[in-house]
């Protein structure tokens, strides 16, 4: 079993970096292979909104940069963990830059999911997805928005994404507990 960690934090964000470390350790105790991708070290350009990945080269972005490598790794994984500082209730721009480039994973055609219109799935199998956000201090509104965003992202892939928010100063035991809880919730056992 393989896991991919998408590290969406910036250098110096010790709380989020702690979350990455503890998630990686928790995963290493349950899966055979863990790959950590530090998005801040990659060259990933912003989605150009051209829909070339749907109507020119179906399934592949027309821009060739590190995003394609991440997408291959994403599809080859059984579990994907997003780690991000909760940014006004959303993801960091670093993580968002990559997620905006994930639309080639979907088929443009419309279908109904949970009573709403979404896109068809392009692939037969997608990894289970968990999201660990970090906040330096409690912020109920940001946490509520974050939960809503993660749930909506799950609808896009016709499944449930699980989320937790780690609040406070860097504290390895708390970060580890959050990570373990998320893995329990998606049924990944040692």
């Amino acid at each position, binding site marked *: 079993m393989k896991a991919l960690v998408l590290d969406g934090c910036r250098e110096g964000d010790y709380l989020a970096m702690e979350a990455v470390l503890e998630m990686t350790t928790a995963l290493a105790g349950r899966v055979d292979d863990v790959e950590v991708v530090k998005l801040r070290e990659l060259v990933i350009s912003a989605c150009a*909104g051209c829909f070339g990945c749907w109507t020119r080269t179906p399934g592949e972005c027309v821009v060739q940069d590190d995003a394609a490598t991440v997408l291959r790794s994403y599809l*080859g994984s059984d579990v994907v963990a997003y780690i991000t500082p909760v940014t*006004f209730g959303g993801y960091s721009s670093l993580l968002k830059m990559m997620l*905006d480039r994930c639309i080639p994973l979907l088929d443009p055609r*419309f279908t109904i999911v949970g009573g709403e*219109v979404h896109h068809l799935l392009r692939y*037969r199998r997608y990894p289970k997805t968990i999201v660990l956000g970090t906040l330096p201090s409690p912020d109920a509104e*940001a946490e509520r928005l974050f939960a809503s965003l993660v749930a909506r992202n799950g609808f896009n892939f016709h499944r449930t994404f699980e989320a937790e928010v780690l609040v406070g100063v860097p504290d390895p035991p708390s970060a580890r507990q959050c990570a373990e809880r998320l893995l329990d919730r998606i049924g990944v056992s040692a």
Partner: protein
Amino acid sequence: MNALILVGSPKGRKSASWMLGSGIGEGLRDRGVTVQYGMVHHELRSGEGTGKLLDLFDSSDLVVLAFPLYVDSLPAPLTRLLELVAERKDRTAAAGNPRLGVVVQCGFPEAHQCDTAIGICRRFAGFTGMRWAGALAMGMGGSLEGDFGRLPGGGKKILDALNKTAEALARGGDIPDEAKAVFARPLMPRWLYTLTGNLGWRLKMRKNKAQSPIGYRPYGQG
């Protein structure tokens, strides 16, 4: 009053976000407001452009974010700009009480799919000490390709809602509920939008001379 319209679409002046944002911007200008525009994707490519946008943000009494919904949220470069603004506000307290408004559209029929993105903008406003002026959210954004005239009724209701929004913002008010309701109303039946949308993808593939089928799996899994 100084207003800044930030266009969050990578397509800049060719985008639906530009149509909607400039609709508000021109309405503000007609009422004596000084209006500037910023193309976020383009400006954030350079340090100079980023600095310019941040300075404009700081000197505006009203900022309107006009953007397409990307993965249930704001496009990444617009998120980056908001991060930078918030970092700056940590150092310098916001002068006066600037306001933040939003106009967002998504490619799905349901306008409520924009709600989380609007919440993020509202939280940003609270975080940076801006006053929230409300949001217009529209579904079926795919119908807005370059021209209001393509919309049912020539887009008169949408143009009227943009005008009413500009009028309210120019006198210091919030985006009117009446305009929000017009925006949230589906432009056509859902079945018709999805039918024409699905047909549209295939027509674009043909126009682009796509070499693979629409459901092609370049990364394996048969």
